[in-house]
């Protein structure tokens, strides 16, 4: 088992000479006509979007063949800023929406980007069943431990004792361990990074883009506006630093044994990367003979 303290620093824009025609490095892949975005300063979501676009570039994806589907919440707004075929759906339903899209057009690389509340509370059932079926979609879950957009209510990820606007005395509910749940439900690929690990995250996103089956990536993300304000305080950068200090990278860790507490270590890594027959493959191969046999009957009708 190899433990390594993470020392990766976030990408910080350099101070280049002023140019007349400055282009955003992700111009073309972001909807620049929608900037500025609605996210708070210090929020981790910008880094996640950067890592997502970098990951797709690394994967060599055909951008016309990538669809992004989001649910509702701060992370739910990601779909609206990425210049690809993109859908901002209902609360918790991004995964079944994406499953329908993927099953109707298998050429599409279909990525769900949504938050922990969206994917694991109201949408939890869809997540475990998509993992069970091994539908060939990728799910990037941005975990900020709280409901951000609605003003800081308890999420299924909120650590015990953490404060939220619906847990004014501290949270008394056991949180989910997202990677453990995804792994237990049968995901083919399971990773966890934080918004601090933009390069590693981009690498995982690239692997998932070219991998068949249900891929799940959790991204621990700072929410200075509500989570930090109600708890440890500090800016987005302070939170990123603390995630960095708390991170232990261990690719061999058992994802079911690495819950995230209020202050203890955050185990990150690429935990699972297995090849299991996907839903699509099972449809194609598993029932092909029976379907062909039945079609002979129809031909002779």
């Amino acid at each position, binding site marked *: 088992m190899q433990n390594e303290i993470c020392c990766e620093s976030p990408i910080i824009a350099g101070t280049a000479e002023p140019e007349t025609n400055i282009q955003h490095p992700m111009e073309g892949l972001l909807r620049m006509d929608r900037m500025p975005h609605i996210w708070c300063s210090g929020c981790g979501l910008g880094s996640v979007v950067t890592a997502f676009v970098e990951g797709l570039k690394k994967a060599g994806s055909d951008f016309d063949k990538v669809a992004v589907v989001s649910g509702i919440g701060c992370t739910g707004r990601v779909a609206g800023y990425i210049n690809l*075929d993109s859908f901002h759906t209902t609360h918790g339903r991004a995964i079944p929406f994406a499953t*329908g899209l993927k099953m109707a057009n298998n050429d599409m690389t279909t990525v769900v980007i949504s938050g922990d509340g969206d994917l694991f509370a109201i949408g939890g059932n*869809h997540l475990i069943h998509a993992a069970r079926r091994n539908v060939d979609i990728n799910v990037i879950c941005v975990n900020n431990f709280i409901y951000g957009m609605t003003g800081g209510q308890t999420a299924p990820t909120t650590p015990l004792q953490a404060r939220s606007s619906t847990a004014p005395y501290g949270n008394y509910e056991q949180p989910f361990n997202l990677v453990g749940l995804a792994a237990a439900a049968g995901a083919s690929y399971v990773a966890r990074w934080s918004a601090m690990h933009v390069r590693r995250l981009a690498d995982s996103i690239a692997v998932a883009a070219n991998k068949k089956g249900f891929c799940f990536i959790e991204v621990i993300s700072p929410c200075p506006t509500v989570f930090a304000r109600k708890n440890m305080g500090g800016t987005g950068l302070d939170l990123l630093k603390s995630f960095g200090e708390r991170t232990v990278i261990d690719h061999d860790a058992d994802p079911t044994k690495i819950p995230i507490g209020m202050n203890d270590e955050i185990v990150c890594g690429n935990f699972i990367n297995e090849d299991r027959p996907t839903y699509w493959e099972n449809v194609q191969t598993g029932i092909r003979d029976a*379907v062909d046999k039945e079609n002979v009957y*129809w031909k002779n009708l």
Partner: protein
Amino acid sequence: MFKKSKLRGEFFMQGDIACAEGAVSAGCRFFGGYPITPASEIAERMAYRLPLLNGAFVQFEDEIASMASILGASWTGVKSMTASSGPGISLKAENIGLGMMMEVPCVIVNVQRGGPSTGLPTSWAQADMMQARWGSHGDYGCIALCPKNPQEMFDLTIVAFNYAERYRMPVFVMTDAIVGHMTEKVVVPPVDEIEIIDRRYTDKKPDDYLPYAVGDDLIPDFAKVGDGYRFHSTGLTHDERGYPDMTEHAQLTHAVRIVEKVKKHADDIILLEEKGVEGADVVVVAYGITARTVVPAIEMARKKGIKVGLMRLITAWPFPTKRIRKLAGEIAGFVVPEINLGQMVYEVERCAGGQCKVKSLPHPGGGIHKFETVLSAIEEIAHAK
């Protein structure tokens, strides 16, 4: 692959099966479903049929997922459908609203059973008519078709797909457990004799395409995923670009338009069947199975010398406001039998506007209207003239 995979000819067929076959004939190639009585036969038939046609059937973990999935599938240009009954439709309501807001063509079949709640799973009602119209929150236009027999389960499912494609919206087939589970003769015409309408795709280049720009017909042109348009669609109120726009202006244009587009085309959408309505004193307004069960009472009333006609609502929504309003000025009154405690009768009353009598004949479900009840209602209105 084998080309001959559609039925043609005459069959002794169950209503639910006929619905599935109508969907297949209309070009439906994706079905998202969840088991529920009395609609499960539709899912079962689609599970059998779609793999033969290289389509996809997915039995989801719940009704919500099955509704969300047909929206995702439809964005790829594939015609999609789901089927359920009242409790399932209640769960689908949220994503029906998303379909209305995003303007996604798809078909939702409701094989109605008695309610509320679990109600009468194995028995029938027509008590979700207002749910179809208003079941998801907010304002939106609605199209709902009411088959009266297995033949119409086939025919009207095709019409439902055509309307969904033409007007770019989810369309309801509002049947019930009697028609769904009834087995009768169904004639399936040859493929080239079935009128199929497909959604209108944009002819614009990606750079010039605005996903929600409309012309006079108020219906936006479609672009499907994967074709390089890189468009955005959201359940939020949006502008022509599909971008969220949280303004009164956007609500006044987009949210109003998804109601107005149905109103604008109402005359083309509305399907009515009238028998003996011209010159009648009494008009029975009925739909679905009730339009069949009341026929003996209407015939008996005629034998007794009462001028009574039957107006069958083939489309319940949009409601035939103009026609009912005109008739109201000419007749003594309407009799409105329905297997609910009075739903479409509100519309008849609204349109009649006090010009004539309107008599509701409610029935809570699990049975049908008694011959004498219908007859005496017709007589009552006729004699009150």
